[in-house]
Structures are given as C-alpha cells and as structure tokens.
C-alpha cells in the first residue's frame, strides 16, 4: 500500500507550483492515501491532491486558508498508527524531544510533521519520525535554500519502506529507508 506524504506547498504565496519533475512522477492510480502536513494553502492545491488519490488527509498549518482542517490527526494504515501534525505548534520547531511528546500524546507508531521545510526521517525510541519537507521548495522563515522533497511510504504488514524523492539540480534523487515495527 502506497502512501504519499508531503506538505508546505505555500502555493501561490511563496511558490508557483510543485516542480514539474515531481508532477510527472505523481500519477493517479498508484497511491492509495495522501497525508498532508498542511500549508497548502489554497483549495486548488487540495483539489490537485484529490486527483492523485481519493483518500486525502490534511492537518491545518499556520498559513492554511481553510480553517476547518484539524490540528492533529491519527490515521491507521495497515498495522501502523500514523500521526499527522503540522509542527508549528511544536516549539522548538523540529525538536526531537518535543515531537516525541506529541507522539506520546497521540500514541502513534509513525509521526509525520512539517513546517521546517527540511526533510527528516529517523527512528527515535523505537518510533518513526518523518518530515517530508516542502514539496514545492517554498522558503522557510529561517531558510531560503529549500530542496523540494516528498516521501512515499510503502506499508506492508509490519514493515514500512520510505522512499524519499528529492529534486537536486533538476534531477530526482531517491532514497530508501526502512522501518520495522517492533
């Protein structure tokens, strides 16, 4: 089962669109679920995500125009409980321990967060933390050089394989990270 994890598009405020190289990869039919960390910001982006898969989960980011998205969400995919949160609520931004707190609150196996526009994927205390970065490469308050990235999770029983797609020098680079639920 394939799950697409992305966020922080900031379209059209900070960026025009998702890079064309990414768009070519993202074809409908392959992905079953989409987990979006937020800051889309407009409805058009949401509609675009809807065309890729029917099951789209979005949490509210600080620049989202839609006020009705939840702040946090837990989604069960296969055997995994996946937590979704934008990350602007977590202070300091991107701090491991603070994120761990959120994970304990939500009681999830995988925690997905964003806001830093920087890709992260690590295992901490037996739990998996993913930050898909910014799919459009929009600038951050603290950082202007943002590498566009997103993540595909391949969930099979108790194994998750994360494929990270980064756009480096106009070329898509893929990385693979595996996580097993203990």
């Amino acid at each position, binding site marked *: 089962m394939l799950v697409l994890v992305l966020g922080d598009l900031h379209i059209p405020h900070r960026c025009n669109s998702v890079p064309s190289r990414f768009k070519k*990869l993202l*074809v409908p*039919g392959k992905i079953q679920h989409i987990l979006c960390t937020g800051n889309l910001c407009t409805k058009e982006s949401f509609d675009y995500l809807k065309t890729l898969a029917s099951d789209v989960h979005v949490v509210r980011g600080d620049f989202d125009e839609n006020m009705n998205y939840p702040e946090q969400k837990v989604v069960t995919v296969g055997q995994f409980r996946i937590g979704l949160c934008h990350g602007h609520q977590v202070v300091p931004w991107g701090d491991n321990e603070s994120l761990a707190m959120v994970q304990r609150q939500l009681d999830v196996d995988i925690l997905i967060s964003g806001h830093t526009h920087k890709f992260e994927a690590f295992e901490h205390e037996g739990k998996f933390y993913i930050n898909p970065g910014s799919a459009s490469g929009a600038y951050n308050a603290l950082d202007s050089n943002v590498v566009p990235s997103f993540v*595909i999770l391949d969930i099979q029983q108790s194994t998750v394989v994360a494929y990270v*797609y980064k756009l480096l020098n106009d070329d898509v680079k*893929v990385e693979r990270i595996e996580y097993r639920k203990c």
Partner: protein
Amino acid sequence: METVLGKLRQSTSRITRRASLTGNGAPAVTKDEIIETIDKFIPPVTPESDNNNLKKAGSHDNGSPGSESSSASHAHSYSSEWERLFMRQNYFKKLQEQGMDGNLRSSRFRSVCWKLYLKVLPEEKENWSEHSLVWRKKYEDLKNKLIVNPRKEVEGIDLSLNNPLSQNNESPWNKFFQDNELRLTIKQDVIRTFPELEFFKSEVLREMMIDILFCFSREHYNLSYKQGMHELLAPLIFVLHCDHQAFQHACEIESIQELIKDIMNPSYLEHDAYAMFCQVLETVEPWYMSKDFVISQYRGKDFINAQPFAKCQDLNPSNRIVTKLTRIQDYILKKHDSELHLHLERLEIAPQIYGIRWIRLLFGREFPMQDLLMLWDAIFADGIGFDLVDYLFVSMLLYIRDLLLSSDYATCLSTLMKFPPVPDVHYFIVKSLYLREPNQYPRPPNYTYQTVNKIPGKTRNHKASPNPPEGKRGSTASLPVLEDTTLRQTPSASSLARLETSSLRSYHSSPAGYSPGAISENESLHSSPTKYSTLPNRSGRNRGGKKLTKMQENDIQHHLSYLQGRLNEKETMSRYCSSKLDVHIDRLQSELQQIDMEQNEEIFLALAGIKQVRDVLNGTLKFSQNLLDEDEININDNHYKDDVVIMTPDSDIAMTAEHDNRRELLRKRQKMFYQSSEENSENAESPESFNGVLRPRTEFELDDYEKHSKLRGGNAARGNMSESTISESQTSLSSGNMVDSPNPLYCIESWEEVDG
C-alpha cells in the same frame, strides 16, 4: 441407424462394465474380443465371461458411477474404468467416438480425455508422466517469473529505478503496477464467470483463475487478455475439479496405481488447467484477434470504402472471426437452408452480432454447464482444429429456424442472444456431423424449437400429410428410410409457420374454403405435431409435445384475421383477372365470329373454357366439390331432354350470354361439358378415377345451379342431385361418351343436331 447404434453402444458399455467388473484379472484381450464381436451384431449379446453375474450393480446406465463405487464389491471400479478407457488397444480412437457420442457425461476421467484430445498428453501412455511434469514445471516457472513482488530485496537495481513511482519500463514497480492493472481487468471478468454456479464464487478459485489468465496473457503478449477467455477457462477448471473429487473419493476406497495418482494429482489443478487452456487457446486464438491497425492504413489514402448494397458485415473484413462468421453464414447456412439465410440477410442481421459470442466462447453461454461439457467433448474429440464449431453453429440456427423465420428484427435478435433451452444437446452434434459430411452420416430428423406462440395450423398443403407417417409409425423398417419418407412428405412439417415470403403454394392450393375449413384444419394440424412426436427417435425428444395454451387462441384469432386479409386480397386479384379476361374474351369472340372457320368448334370450346375460368375468378361460379354424390348424379335418367333452355352449369353464362348468338353459345356450353376448366380437365379424362379418388384440393360447388333448379320447379332428377356435384359430374364425363353418357344433360347434343 443412429438410434440403434447408439443403443448398441450403450449396451456395449454396459456389458463391458459388467465384464470388467467380473474380469478384473481377466486378460484384456478377452474383453476386446467380446467388445468387437458385440460391435458386429445388432442385438446385444451377453458375453460369455459374465459368469459371476454381478447383477447387483444396479442400473448400468452411464450415469451411475456412484452406485458402483459405493458398493463394496466394486471396489476397483475406479481403476477398472481407467483400464477400460485408456488401457486398451486403439483406445484413443474409441475415446474420440465416445466423446462424439456424449458418453463421457459421467466419466470420472473426463479431464484426462480432454487432455488427450487437446494433446496435452500424448497418445503413448509411457510418456504421460513425463509430459505432465514438463507442463507443470513450465507453469510453475512462469508463475514465479511473472508474479513479481517488487518489494523483495533486489540487489543491483538502482534505487532510481526501483522506487514505486518510477515510470521506467525496467522498473519492477512499474511492471507491478501494470500487472495490477491487467489483473484488475481480468478480475472484472472472472467475478462474472458462470454466475449461476456456486463453484465459481470462491475467492481461492477466482484468484487461481486470475493467475492462470494473467500468466497466459503475459506469455502471449500479442494476444494479451481478451474478454471471453475466462469463459473458456472456467469449464476446464470445473472438469478438473470434478475429476479430482472423484479421484480423492476413490483413493479412500481403493488402492490406485501410481500413474493415476500422478495424473490426477489435485494439487496440480492450476497447472493442468493452464496446460489445457493454452492448447485450447492455440486454436481459438485467431478468433480473438482484432486487427485494428488495418484501418489506419486506409486513413492515409483517400479510400472511401463505399460499396453499393454492401452488407454491413462486409464493410470491414479484416478480422479472422468476421471472415469465419461470414463463411458460416454465406456458405454453410446458405447451402443447407437458403430460406433462413435469405431471411437473415433481409433483416440485415449480421452474424457478428450474435456469432462472435457463440464462437469465441465455444457456445459457453448458450447452454447449461452439463450440456456444454457434452458439446465440448464432441468439439475436442473431433480434432484440435475445432472444425465442428462451424457446423454446430449452423445446426443451432436450423434448430430455431421457425422462430427466426416468423420474427422481425428485434425478436430475431432477442432469440439469437438468448438461445432457447434445448432438451438434448447431442442432437446438435449429430446434426453438425451430418451437415459436414452428408454422405457419411445418416440424416438426423429435423427437430426444431416450437414455442407456444407458434400456430402449427398455418400450412394448408399438408392436410393429407398426417396419413403417411401415421401409417408408417408401426413399421419396423429401417429408421433412415422412415425418417426420409417422413421428411419428404412433410417438408414443411419442420417449419410449420411460414411467412408469405416463403412459397405461396400453401395459399394457392386451397383458394377457397378458408373460413369453414380453417378451424377444422387447425385442429387437424394441431394433432399432427403430436403424431410426429411419436416417431421413434434416439433421444426420445418429444418434438411436438408442446400443447396449445390460451395464448394460442389469441394467436388463432390473429391468424384468422390475417388470413382473411389475404383472402380479400386474392379476391380482388381474381376479380381483376376476370375483368381483364372478359375484355379479351369479348374481343376474341367478336373476331372469331367474323371469321367463319372450319374448325371453329374447338376454338369455341376453348373460348368457353376461358369464360369459365373468368367466371371462376369472378366468383360467380363457385368451386366446391362434394365428391361423394358423384354416383348419384350418374344414375339419373334423361329428364333433361325437354328442358332445353338452360341446362348448363354456368347459368350465369346463360344469363349473361349474348343473345344474338345463343345457339353458338349453347353449343359452346355443350362442348364445355367436355372441356371445362383446367381443374376439371384431368377428371374429364377419367371419370372412373374421378369417382373413386379423393381429391384433396378443390371443392366445386354450384350455388347458382341450385338456385336455378329451384326456380325451375324441381325436376325430379335435379332434386336428387346435390348442388355440389352437378357441374362436376357433367363435366367429368369424357368427351368420348357424348351420346352414350347416362347423364341426361348430354342429350342436348342431339338437340344441337336437331337445330343443325
């Protein structure tokens, strides 16, 4: 012939079964000898070896394997069936015959027979294990290769290739997604396979079918998967499954030899099904090909594919299946039944509409499973080329020809799309064999499907037809002769509802007498189908057994009104003809009277005859023939000597005669006695035969004569005469008996001489 032989074969198999039961250890030669001797003689002979008389085997029909295996004394029946089917000399040929005869219906080794027919297993039994192994391994390898899990750690493949979103053709993920798509397509068809059978609803089975079909389509890239293949696969799996059940059941009861265990291993169901499926598809493959690329060729040129009067099926003759269907319709069907062919062509029912499904699925959706399996026995047994399919197609069409001939476009289509149920499918096999080689096989009786909607009484020309088959029913003459004569005498008995597009003789033969005769004829012909139904036939099918229902009354009404309309038409036509004749007669008459010729007698005779014809057409002279009163007329004395004036049957002619030339006319009329209308002409020659013979066709009636006689005040002789026979009797007397005729009316001849 077919029936007798069929019974013989049944009894043969009975006997061999009994024999095999007794002689389990008996040498095969003895059994063979027995069987061969039996084959030579017509009445079944009890074999000498049936010493033990295992009569407790119960019914020895082909359809009771269960009773045998359940009884303890027949513990080896499974093995013995194996022996009987496969271990004899020339077993393959016998198997083919059995397949054609439909004897495999309850065989427990049907799948093995099919494997042999389809050449999955070779004829030499020694190689069976080897071949099976080869096929099974082949499938296993295929499966492993094709059903790929991209998540398996594949070293050496670049991550940029081996990621889920990769669209590179090399990427295993890409293949995975493409495979998934194909599987989805296949799955959509598989879940709709044989929805009426529970067997095909299990998930495991469906997965198996999807795997098999998927492997096949990946293996044969050019053909890929086409809708319909699942229907071909399904009965194969069904047969294998049934055989495996029997095998497992038998394993519990008796010990099975190794070879059987190997061949019938249930765990290889999928592999065996795949093997058989491949072989079937090898023949069937061209029927599934659709050459779409041909069209693009034409787009380049300025090619207008417009032929005047082209049939719709001819406009794009690029497909093999279309050619095949056209060949079936235009060649085979036309040859055997041009009427139906014309009808279908006129309605513009292209054979592709219904035929593609029939052919591609090997009639899979037209018949219930058991019947279908029997058909497939025959198709496979016939040869790997499936040649019988064409002829089966035609025999199916012939079976419903009556329905088709009497239907319009929509009804025809609905009938063809939803083939009516058939009580005995074996008939099609027999018929198609006959169609293919008319010289080699006896002609089967012409059964057709009769529904309650059909009125058997529509034909008129076979009023006498119930008699011959009735007469011959009891005869023990050889059946083909019987059937042939029946067929010859009742050519339309098999198509009792004919449209006006067909021959009009049925209407011409009885121009009058519809109204009084209609109901009685209906009844008489209603009974005739039931008479036909008692004809001996092999399958015991009751052809005419469908009785009338209430609907039929409505239909009778409908038909009556229809016939009335036709009658009116005919009447108008006759009147028109008579008026035209009148004109011409006047002309001729005037001319002839001018010319005073020597032999004007003949001419005037002829003219009088023509006048009579005109009157008949006009309706002033009615035809009704009551032949029974013939003799009465002949006995009369000559009371008419004095009654000179108008003694003619054609009183109307007398009334309307031209008075200026009465004598001539009278003379004509006298001559007319001898040479009257054509219908009577033959009777004029032979008065004796006329009196004795039952003439089925026309009835002659003299309404006017009766009226006239009443006016005259009743001559005694006239009183004796019934109105119906007078003209007949008068005109029947041969010209030779002019003076000597007992008929008093003929004395007018002398009167003529008197007048000079």
